[in-house]
């Protein structure tokens, strides 16, 4: 398993786990979008990283 993909996956899980803890701050509503954005971005990176790793292994078995 690609270690980088695992790292990004763990980052996505940690970012997701913290979403309920982000407080409601009416003066700064943007902070509520940070967690979901991180989750999506790290999941995409994990997927791309895994595909990159898999394609390298197929080219150089």
């Amino acid at each position: 398993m690609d270690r980088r993909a695992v790292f990004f996956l763990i980052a996505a899980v940690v970012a997701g786990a913290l979403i309920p803890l982000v407080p409601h701050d009416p003066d700064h509503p943007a902070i509520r979008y940070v967690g979901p954005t991180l989750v999506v971005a790290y999941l995409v990176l994990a997927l791309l990283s895994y595909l990159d790793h898999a394609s390298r292994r197929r080219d150089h078995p």
Partner: protein
Amino acid sequence: MANLMVIAVVGIALVFDFVNGFHDAANSIATVVATRVLKPWQAVVWAAFFNFAAFLFLPLEVANAIAKIVSPEFISIGLVFAGLMGAIFWNVLTAWLGLPSSSSHALIGGMVGAGFAKVGPDVFTAKTMVTLRKTGVFIIYSPLVGLLLSFTLIVIVMWIVHRIRNKNAVNRTFRGLQLVSAAAFSLGHGANDAQKTMGIIAALLIGAHKLDASVLDDPNGLPLWIVLSCHGAIALGTMFGGWKIVKTMGTKLTRLEPMGGVCAESAAAATLFFASYNGIPVSTTHTITGAIVGVGSANRISAVRWNIARRVAWAWVLTIPGSAAVAMLMYLIVEVFN
């Protein structure tokens, strides 16, 4: 007598700001030093200038958040003194151990710890909890955002430059760009970190009835002398720098080339700007560490020295409870002499 004590505690707050600059700003120039774009003394002068200039660019949202972390009705001169001493003690200890901890979180831990020693659980008001929860979540989010942005940036940049044969020209370009990214990062650092001390001084003056609490309703309502003195103190602290920490951050986490340095600093600067606009007291150290790890992991995940990163992470986790415990003890000592 009360006036003298207020002046003394303001002085201690500015010393804290100086130590903050000494401790944290060194991290902010680590990548410039590590990539040899600037000599250490040039880098500290460059960073100090932009630390000071930050007040011209960013609102004082973080200062307001810190000023409200302990409700004004609980604030006393002794409480602020104990909170500051807890934070300063923690910073000195971690600097002595060569650990990049966070002055910001030490300050928050110190204030809450001293507040808890004074009024018990009542210190955790709704406003305090909003700031604490924001701060706590962004202990994790700020390095993750820095890492994500720097990783994305370096991948894009590598994709753009990988066909260019003249690698020396690429390096030269990025060495020049690193001056810009270092300046942006120092602006973000100056804004976010100096504002924490402004918040403490504002809280002290409100508690001592020298300042009206309504100034906190305006993002730029603090008196100019507080703003200028805090930026001046952090800039001076930067000038004296903490070289032991520069070494840890700039060379031990992962080795950096100028291109990586630009990406790491730009990513960290963007994260700090976001935090400053949204009143989130984040750690410069956390942010740049995440960004440096992002650049390292874009090359190879094994390029990141995880044992050092783990040591750094432990210092982060321990900072708020550690400084809070020291501040509680300090407050109890203060009360004995009161």
